């Protein structure tokens, strides 16, 4: 095992030597799905990228392109970045997966890292965060804080990452409050503040009083602030909406991972892998829980976070049934990563269909 790794590393180092000689600086590219000031997902990737660039100083040159649509145009943007001489390219949205894979085949010497996907290649890694661990904590708080027993979830695309988030939220909201109901709205977009605002309003109109969002802008929190109800920061801390409506947040902290991967490219030790980290490594952070949350709820939520971080508790622990009532996990059984990576069903108690 070690020997193969060593050999692979050596081979990569040889491959890299040529590029390293061409340019002293390591060129690191980033592709973002939204604008870098969206206040959420893309902004946080960009801030992590800047932290990475600061860490390396003169050794690294950072290039990026924002608001790249998922689909054919993504392939063009990634190709262009590879042609510009990028040594490693991070593509930071699920929908870039196939585009990244296609470009990776054409540029075997360039390293590619795709966020939140599952396909890999010899020169393409996948990396993602176990957001569902954070969703467990925010879902628990949501269940405790709702007075109408109705919580809402604004979904982007029906991909496993989002479905895990919905399930984890519901499971833990129900732990906190057995009467809780969850309403899900799919928007089929990562970033459309007006739609996100309308969806939040639609949920409020139906009596929902805690809204969790899996889209990239701060629009849901802005609407909640104006019209009442609670929400959570998503991807970024969104502390500007504290103490109300933002009760807490799930923070993606990519900087350590970016530093680690770029260092590997500089050292010539980069190897393809599929990284999936959570609260324990700090890739998923829980933002400060505000005073709007009662102290005992806060303590319980933090205890859950600790247990997850230590590996004592897994958010998907049985007994759990699928939506149709058929058994999924037996008592005490923990979901394996393979099932979670491709999760395409709701757990029992969530209404509605997942768009296929």
């Amino acid at each position: 095992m070690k020997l193969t790794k060593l050999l692979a590393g050596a081979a990569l180092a040889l491959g890299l030597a040529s590029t390293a000689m061409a340019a002293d600086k390591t060129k690191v590219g980033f592709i973002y799905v939204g604008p870098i000031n969206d206040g959420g997902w893309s902004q946080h990737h960009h801030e992590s990228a800047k932290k990475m660039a600061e860490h390396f100083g003169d050794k690294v040159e950072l290039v990026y392109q924002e608001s790249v649509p998922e689909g054919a145009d993504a392939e063009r943007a990634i190709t262009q970045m590879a042609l510009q001489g990028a040594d490693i390219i991070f593509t930071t949205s699920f929908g870039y997966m196939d585009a990244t894979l296609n470009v990776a085949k054409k540029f075997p010497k360039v390293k590619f890292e795709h966020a939140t996907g599952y396909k890999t290649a010899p020169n393409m890694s996948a990396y993602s965060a176990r957001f569902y661990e954070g969703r467990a904590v925010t879902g628990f708080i949501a269940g405790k804080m709702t007075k109408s027993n109705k919580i809402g979830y604004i979904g982007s695309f029906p991909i496993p990452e989002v479905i895990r988030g919905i399930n984890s939220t519901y499971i833990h909201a129900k732990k906190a409050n057995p009467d809780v109901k969850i309403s899900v709205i799919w928007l089929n977009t990562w970033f459309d503040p007006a739609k996100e605002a309308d969806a939040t309003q639609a949920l409020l109109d139906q009596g929902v009083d805690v809204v969790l969002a899996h889209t990239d802008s701060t629009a849901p929190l802005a609407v909640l602030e104006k019209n009442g109800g609670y929400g959570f920061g998503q991807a970024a801390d969104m502390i500007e909406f504290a103490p109300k409506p933002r009760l807490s947040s799930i923070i993606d902290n990519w900087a350590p991972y970016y530093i680690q991967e770029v260092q590997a490219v500089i050292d010539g030790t980069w190897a393809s892998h599929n990284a999936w980290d959570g609260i324990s490594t700090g890739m998923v952070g829980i933002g400060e829980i505000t005073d709007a949350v009662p102290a005992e709820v806060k303590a319980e939520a933090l205890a859950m976070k600790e247990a997850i971080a230590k590996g004592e508790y897994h958010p998907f622990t049985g007994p759990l049934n699928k939506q149709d009532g058929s058994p999924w996990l037996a008592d005490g059984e923990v979901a394996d990563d393979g099932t979670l990576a491709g999760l395409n069903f709701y757990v029992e108690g969530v209404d509605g269909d997942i768009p296929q």
Partner: protein
Amino acid sequence: MDLSGINPVLLIASLMVAATPLLLAAIGELVVEKAGVLNLGVEGMMITGAISGFAVAVETGSPWLGFLAAAAGGALLSALFALLTQVALANHVASGLALTLFGLGLSALIGQSYGGQKPPAMAKIDLGPLTDLPVVGPILFGHDPILYLGIAIVAAVWALLKFTRLGLILRAVGENHEAAHALGYKVVRIRVLAILFGGACAGLGGAYISLIRVPQWTDGMTAGVGWIALALVVFASWKPWRVLAGAYLFGGVTVLQLNLQAAGIAIPVEYLSMSPYVITVIVLVILSRDKSSAPGSLGRIFHASS
């Protein structure tokens, strides 16, 4: 499958809010096209209005000044279009597309330091006992002033085009600019004024998104409303009240599909998401089966000597 969660009164009240940006942009474009000019830059003018309004509202603390600045910003950008098409005689389509791209870039540049900021709130009009009336209260008397302004502009445009001499001249310029010119009307001047009006309306529509509907600033936040406004003008056969109906229909189906999803209706989400576009197009196509058609000189370049 629980429809009882959907409150029709709240639904109508939110659809009016959702439709207002579209309504403002479309009624402005209607006047522009009635004057024979095709300005495809609506999206660019909207987003410019959204950021100018947002920036001024944040700096001054007054949403009213914000909306004023939004109208000015939209009009200023449309002045560029007027310069290109009316003075330099550039192609309408190309200039309009360029205007959209320019507006998107310009707004992102201006907006760099405004991400994450909160604009001052605009108070809803409080009509006391009227607002508290059941059903009609929330629908008719519980909104912000700009929403009423939008409806007022539609009524004003309708009256102007139908009953006034100015409206007749505007339509004459749009139907046949050479004849209007021969009669001694200042074709270019009238068109420039129409373009500025369209820009101001689009700017207001954009600011409605950034100051009231969302309210915050993010790049590209108009997300294509300007293009829908353009289509709406065509499908509404260049008739002001049909623009209003179309905008409310579009806003209504948009809000309804979100409510249906939240209520857990077993209709595939893809159909629900496309429904606002499909239903609006179908209804307006059926409505526009009569003889009404585009202004005769729409999109044609006018030069006095030609």
